[in-house]
Structures are given as structure tokens and as C-alpha cells.
């Protein structure tokens, strides 16, 4: 039933076939352009790109995950996900949404891997367990490691969705019993876009895809491999509660008077100052709110090791190597206390051990005084 298309219609052609006018098309391009924050000259570029490109094949794999990334993706409001999967990409494999199951599902994936070798985009949701030869996650009888190797080989680029694929997320928290491993540690020699978050914001996920298909190239990445368009600012620096931080006005406990006034959540553990994400700007679910606006601190879900940098409700993280409870201040205070005790002991001991020396000096001084 599915044959390899000889001519793949472009977005523009598809839109025209659907009865949209050229004017509608240009309007759509301006909206995309505005969304991406482009100057007027960039809109022509968008129009050009959409007239030339056909639907990019995408394979979306699921490993050790909770499907929150897929769920977040379908929450995108611009563009809406129906438009993405019907008009922009050809989502040829995703366990969450695809009609086919079993061998038919696998066949759809293999067909895309063959027909579009070197052209498809591989999206990975979830980490890959590498302990015990990968038996902690098997799909269709194959381990996640084997599936990833096969699918990555012919991919044009890889998008690592969410913290699982970017840093291992919750299953990689200590002691990481299944040795959950992020994608960039397993796949070499392919461009990887990391889109961390638990989950990433839906509009950010859609934005990454829109960027790739609109401009035909990967977005500019930061030093960690995240698109700068969404991860270049700290939540803290874009937070509307930032003035309260600068003023020194903090929520002391949840639901206190200060919480009702919307003061800064820093003291109840907000990790916004160390977290790079678009929450403060793009916000969640079409700009409805974000964790801090709804009264709970950020717990840094888009950062490396965030599960082990807890506890969530303390500003200082637990310190490694001192059991789970000790933070830097506790250790420091104990050290300072011990030092004070040591100093006192030394001072007392000095008066005994060096008594003669001190005594001699005193006499020496008194003798000299007499000579005056």
C-alpha cells in the first residue's frame, strides 16, 4: 500500500492542494517567523524553505521513560500537534500514537530507515539501560541498546527528548541500578540536539522541530548541546519574582503570608538560579503558568544530576561523601567548631608546656623595666 513516493509534495504544494491561497501561506510564514523571533527578511527565508521541503520522516523511539515527553509534545499549541504530524513531519514510528502494533510497527520503522537512509530524524525519548547487556528494557525482543544502534546509524540528526535521553533523569539517580545512560554517551558521530526537561515544554519541543524543518539545519546549540533558542537563560534571570529576590523578600514556608504575596521561593529550595530553561519566558501550556508562578520552586528538571542535587526543599544540596543529610554548612560548622575546640586546647596546653619560656620572657621584660 505504501510505495516510495516519486515526488514528495512540498508544504506549499500541500497547502495549495488543500485550497489555501498564497496569501494564507505567507500569513502562516509570518506567524512562524514571529514565533521564531525573526526579522521581516527572515520570513522570506521561511517561505522559501516551506516551498522546497517535503515532510521530513521522523522515527521516535521510546526506552526507559514515562511518556511525559510525548504527552508534552501533544500539548504544543503553536503549532498544534495535528498540524505537525499531518503537514510538517512524517511521524513514521512512535509507540504512543501509531496505529500499527507489533511487526507492522517494526516494519514501518525499517521501511523509513531504508527508504530515507541518512535523511530521517531520530527522536529518542528515554534513557538506555546498559547493565546486564541491556535486559532492563527490551522491545520486540531486542534490547534498547540494539535498537538505538540500528536506528541511529542512518539518522541525519538525533533529538534527545527530555532529561531521560539527555542525562538519564530519575532512573539514573543514585544508585542508578539499571545503569541508565543518556543518548550522547552511546551514539557517536551524529549531531545530537539535547532538549532536556522533565518533560520539556511542549512549545519548545515543537519549536525545535519547526526550527529544523523550516531552516533545514540544526538550531545553534550551547556548550552542553541544548538549543540556545530555549536554554540560553536561567529561569532565575527570566523569573517575574526576581525583584523580590533582589529585594531580599522571601517565602519562609509554603502558604505563609509571603507565599500569598508571591515573594521569591529561593529559601524554600527554588533551583531557578542554576537552571537553564524557557519556563520564565515561554511558560507552560501556551503560557498559562510555570512552577514558580504557581507557588512551587523550580527543582531544576532540565539540569544534569538534578535528582541527586536535592533535597527539593533546601537551597543547599546534600554534600557527597558525608551520608545523605550533611550539607556544606553543616560540615563547615562542625569543622569550625572542632577548630575552636582545638584552639582552646592548644592555648591551655601552651600555658603549661611553655610555662618556663613565657615565665622567662616575663622576667626578662621586668628586668629590663627595672633597668630603666
Amino acid at each position, binding site marked *: 500500500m505504501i510505495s516510495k513516493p516519486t515526488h514528495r509534495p512540498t508544504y506549499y504544494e500541500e497547502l495549495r492542494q488543500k485550497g489555501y491561497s498564497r496569501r494564507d501561506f505567507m500569513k502562516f510564514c509570518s506567524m512562524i517567523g514571529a514565533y521564531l523571533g525573526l526579522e521581516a527578511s527572515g520570513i522570506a527565508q521561511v517561505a522559501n524553505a516551506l516551498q522546497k521541503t517535503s515532510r521530513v520522516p521522523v522515527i521516535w523511539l521510546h*526506552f526507559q521513560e514515562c511518556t511525559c515527553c510525548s504527552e508534552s509534545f501533544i500539548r504544543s499549541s503553536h503549532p498544534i500537534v495535528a498540524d505537525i504530524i499531518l503537514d510538517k513531519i512524517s511521524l*513514521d514510528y512512535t509507540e*504512543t500514537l501509531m*496505529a500499527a502494533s507489533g*511487526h507492522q510497527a517494526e516494519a*514501518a520503522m525499517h521501511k523509513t530507515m531504508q527508504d530515507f537512509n541518512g535523511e530521517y530524524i531520530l527522536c529518542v525519548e528515554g534513557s538506555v539501560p546498559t547493565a546486564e547487556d541491556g535486559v*532492563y528494557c527490551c522491545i520486540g525482543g531486542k534490547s534498547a541498546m540494539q535498537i538505538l544502534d540500528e536506528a541511529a546509524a542512518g539518522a541525519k540528526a538525533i533529538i534527545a527528548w527530555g532529561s531521560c535521553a539527555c542525562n538519564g533523569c530519575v532512573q539514573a539517580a543514585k544508585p542508578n*541500578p539499571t545503569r541508565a545512560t543518556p543518548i550522547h554517551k552511546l551514539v557517536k558521530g551524529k549531531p545530537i540536539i539535547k532538549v532536556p526537561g*522533565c518533560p520539556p515544554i511542549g512549545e519548545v519541543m515543537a519549536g525545535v522541530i519547526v526550527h529544523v524543518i523550516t531552516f533545514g539545519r540544526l538550531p545553534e546549540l550551547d556548550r552542553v548541546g541544548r538549543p540556545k533558542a530555549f536554554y540560553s537563560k536561567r529561569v532565575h534571570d527570566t523569573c517575574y519574582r526576581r525583584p523580590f529576590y533582589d529585594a531580599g523578600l522571601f517565602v519562609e514556608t509554603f502558604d505563609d503570608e509571603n507565599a500569598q504575596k508571591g515573594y521569591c521561593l529561593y529559601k524554600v529550595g527554588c533551583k531557578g538560579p542554576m537552571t537553564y530553561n524557557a519556563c520564565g519566558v515561554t511558560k507552560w501550556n501556551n503560557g498559562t503558568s510555570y512552577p514558580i508562578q504557581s507557588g*512551587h520552586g523550580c527543582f531544576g528538571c532540565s539540569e544534569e544530576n538534578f535528582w541527586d542535587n536535592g533535597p527539593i526543599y533546601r537551597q543547599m544540596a546534600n554534600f557527597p561523601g558525608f551520608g545523605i543529610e550533611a550539607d556544606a554548612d553543616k560540615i563547615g560548622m562542625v569543622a569550625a567548631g572542632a577548630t575552636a575546640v582545638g584552639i582552646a586546647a592548644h592555648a591551655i596546653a601552651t600555658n603549661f608546656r611553655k610555662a618556663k619560656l613565657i615565665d622567662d620572657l616575663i622576667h626578662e621584660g621586668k628586668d629590663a623595666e627595672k633597668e630603666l
Partner: protein
Amino acid sequence: MAERIVVDPVTRIEGHLRIEAEIKDGKISEAYSSGTMVRLLEEILKGRDPRDAWAFVGRVCGVCTTVHSLASCRAVEDALGIVIPPNAELVRNIMYCTQYMHDHVVHFYHLHALDWVDVVSALKADPKKTSEIAQSISNWPKSSPGYFSDLQKRLTTFVESGQLGIFANGYWGHPAYKLPPEVNLIGVAHYLEALEWQKEIVKVHTIFGGKNPHPNYLVGGMACAIGLDDVSGINAERLAYVEQLLKNAKDFINQVYIPDLLAVAPYYLDWGAIGGGLGSYMSYGDLPTNGYNDPSSFKFPSGVILNKDIANVQDVDLRNDTEVQEFIKRSWYEYDGGEDAGLHPWAGESRVKYTGPKPPYEHLNVNEKYSYLKTPRWKGNAVEVGPLARVLIGYARGREDFKAVVDSTLAKLNVPVGALFSTLGRTAARGLESILVADWALEFYDSLILNLKNGDTRMAEMEKFNPAKWEKTAKGVGHTEAPRGALAHWIVIEDTKIKNYQLVVPTTWNASPRDPNGNMSAYEAALKDTPIADPEQPVEILRTVHSFDPCLACAVHVYDEDGKHVSRVKVL
């Protein structure tokens, strides 16, 4: 002759599940259900701050997001003796109802519908006739001939592009698809509308919890402080937003979801006799109207029905160590007490030991251990959990609201009560409780407003948030009814740290392997005797498995008599 089929992976579920089944005389004679992915969160939780647990376990599932966080907060509050303020209970209830409405609609349209709706057949529909049918079943405004004709054009272009995307390789044209093209087109239209709608209703979570998926919870209440006279808190604007979203959701359920369900069901009434399975049902109950510690106030009553005996509903006690127990005889774990031991979750162990075949493998050895799911039992009985269990228990407990929706639906479809014990019954029950939940959500909203009017603005009980005030050891259990069924978390706290944490989740009840006595759990029992028209395209298996709304990834295998793997389902 018996043969074995393999469908792997089963899609449109959450997680990784594999089912192996033997087929004899066109029917499934034996089925084996296996969870093939494990993350061992219970091990990771040990030694951590109990107040953080909700965030960790929330990540068990992003589809039924919120339910684990809720169960976890309740478990810790139960252990520490925290009673949350009424406003927090109401906000949690509103978020809970939101989750139900979202989850059931997404399940019906995006995870389940393609088992009943033939997308390709919709291309042949007459838009005018489609419009007439749509207007006859509902007053939903998007029903003009032009609307359906535009949609059909879009669909045609999509199919003709040759890139079928998510619709590639479906079992289109399979004889088990019985809907006329016009109803299929309505199904496709509402598939897309529901996809757009679902991103709206979750904004209730965003308002109270800051984001969705995975909104934030808080031990002791909720973090979203009420600030009626402040721009930052929950004020009139935020509350009006919630009310509007709840009203829109109720409209969608009553004008789209339920009419579609009732329009599709008559074509598949034979499924009212297939996929019944265990006939035993359990619900922990949920939606407190007078606090978590007063189960009699729950909107969803708790109870157990054994062997379809709805005249006799038994009570559940999650603290009793002889009631809920987990077994690992057929699961890739080991217990200190040996293979046949059953452990109450407070004494539970999660030591994984994989003994299955080395990947890549063709099939599992189903005569030994074959799953990462443990096998939970209630007083030794296998029970089914989920919407059907809740609706049956509500009905059996004599709750008027349950009786009203059940009886009127049975009358509309002209089927007996017995038809509920089936794949169709399970799918229908999900719709019926959605009607109830949509009403309850607005009730809870009104109660919240009334509370605020009366001057109660407390949202969290923080007195015991400080670990210095905790007992040296404490035990708690937090239960809820997830959209997929009964869910509970058991926690043991020692020296302000988590000593043991065990989750028994709905899909574990339903999808688990056999117990030490060889008795099946719900999936395996429901699949038994399901007719399979074409082993190459076992859509029937998907219908029954999807009717449970699985929350793990799944694969289905079918074998021949010699255990040889014969059927690779071919590419269309």
C-alpha cells in the same frame, strides 16, 4: 491446531508490554503478559527525603501524570499524621477530575479508537451524510458538510502523499472493522479535535501545579497559595480560568465523547460478550468530600466484587498484611523468603534478578519467570482494577449517580447488565465515569469558591513539614484511583529518611504474570477465548488489551504447537 502469534510492540499504550498467546480453533487458548522494562525507582528512593518522593514517583508515568504524586503525598501525610486543609483537598480533587477527563478522552480517541475506526475507510465517506449523522447524535457545532468535506480533502492529500506517518501499516480494511465510512470520518474528525482539546483541559494542572505533564504537589497541601487580593496568588482571574476550562471539558465530554461512544458501540455489540476475564473487581475509592481519612465520603466508593457477585461488596484494608500481597514466582525478582512468598508492601522487596533470554530473542520462556511486573493479589484473589471496577462497585454500593448513568446507557444500547463484564463494558465504563467526573469537577470548584468566600484561604498544613518534628519511625499508605485503576504507595520512614517504598500500580494488578498457584491476572484472563480472525493481524488482541488502557509498553506473541514462532505479521 494451535499456533502462536507475535505482536511486538503493542503501541498506543504507555511503557513496554509484551503478550504471548496461543491460538487454537481461531481463539486464544493461552495468553502471557510481560512487562519488559524496569527502572527500579523503589531502590532509588531508599534513603531519600520523604517530602521529595512525590516528584520521583510522579515520573513513574507521564500519561497518568499526577496520580503517583498524589498517592505519594498521601502516603507521607498518612505516615506523619498530617491532615491537609480543605482547600488543598478540593484543589487536588479538581486536578484529579481534570486528569480523568483528559486521560479518558485521550485514551478513547488516540489510544483506543484506531482499533475500532478505520481511517482509510473514512476517505470513502459522503460528507453530507456524515454531517447528518453527526447532527443527529449531538448538537456539537462542528458538524457541517463543509467541515467534513474539508477534513476529508486534507486526509486524502495526506494519504496520497504516500507518507502515512502514524497511520502507516494499520490493520485498515480488516474485516473486524465494522463502522460505515461516515462514522469513521466522524471518528477521524474527533480524533483531531480531541488532540486539540486535550491541550486545553490540562491547563487546570498548569494553574494549580505550574505545568503539565508532571504538575507540582506538596506534602501537607498544595503550593499554590491563595492570594485573592494579590496579583501573584490564586485570585479571581485564575479561578475563572479554571471554571471555564472545566465547563468546556464537560461540554466536550457530553457533546463529543459520549455521543461518539454511543454511536460506535451498536456496531460492536458482539464485544459485549468478549474479553470479560476475571469477573472480580477492586477499587480503593477516591475523591474525598470530607477528608482522606473518611472513606465513606468518597465520590468513588471502595470495595471488592468477587466472581461477578455484585450483591456482595467486600471492604478493602490496605494496612492488613494478609490482604494485599505481591508474588514474584513468575517475575524477574527474588525474595529473601523464597519463590512462593507473598509480601505485604510495607515489608516489600524489589531485588531484580533477570533470568529471561538474552536479547535479541524471539520469545520468552513463559513456563518460568517472564515479566518485570510482580503479581499482586487481594486475599489471594486475582482482581481487575480500572473504570469498570469503579463503575461496578459504585453501582453495587447503590450510589444513585452511578445507577443513573449505567441504567440509562444500558437502556440506550438495549443490552443487559451482563454486557458490562466485557471489553465493550470496560470501554463504556470509562465514558460513563467521565460523565460523573465532569459534574463532580464543577461541584468541587463550587465548594472551593464557597470556602474562599467564607474566609478560609489556607492551602497547606506546614506544621509537620520540618523533619525535626517527626517520629523516629513511621509507616503510611497513600491510595488513589488512577484512571487505570486502584493505586497505592506504601512508605516506611526511619530517622527522617525513606526506609522502604513500594508501589502497587493498576497495570501491575491487570497485566501481571501468573501467581504461584498458576492463576492468571486480568489481561491474560480477558484475552483467553478472544476470537482471532487473522493471526497476521490480531486487532482483536489490541481491542481487549487497549480496553484496559495499559500503562506500560507491550508486545503480543503467538506460537504454534511446537512452540515454534511462525507468524511474522507482514507489511501491508
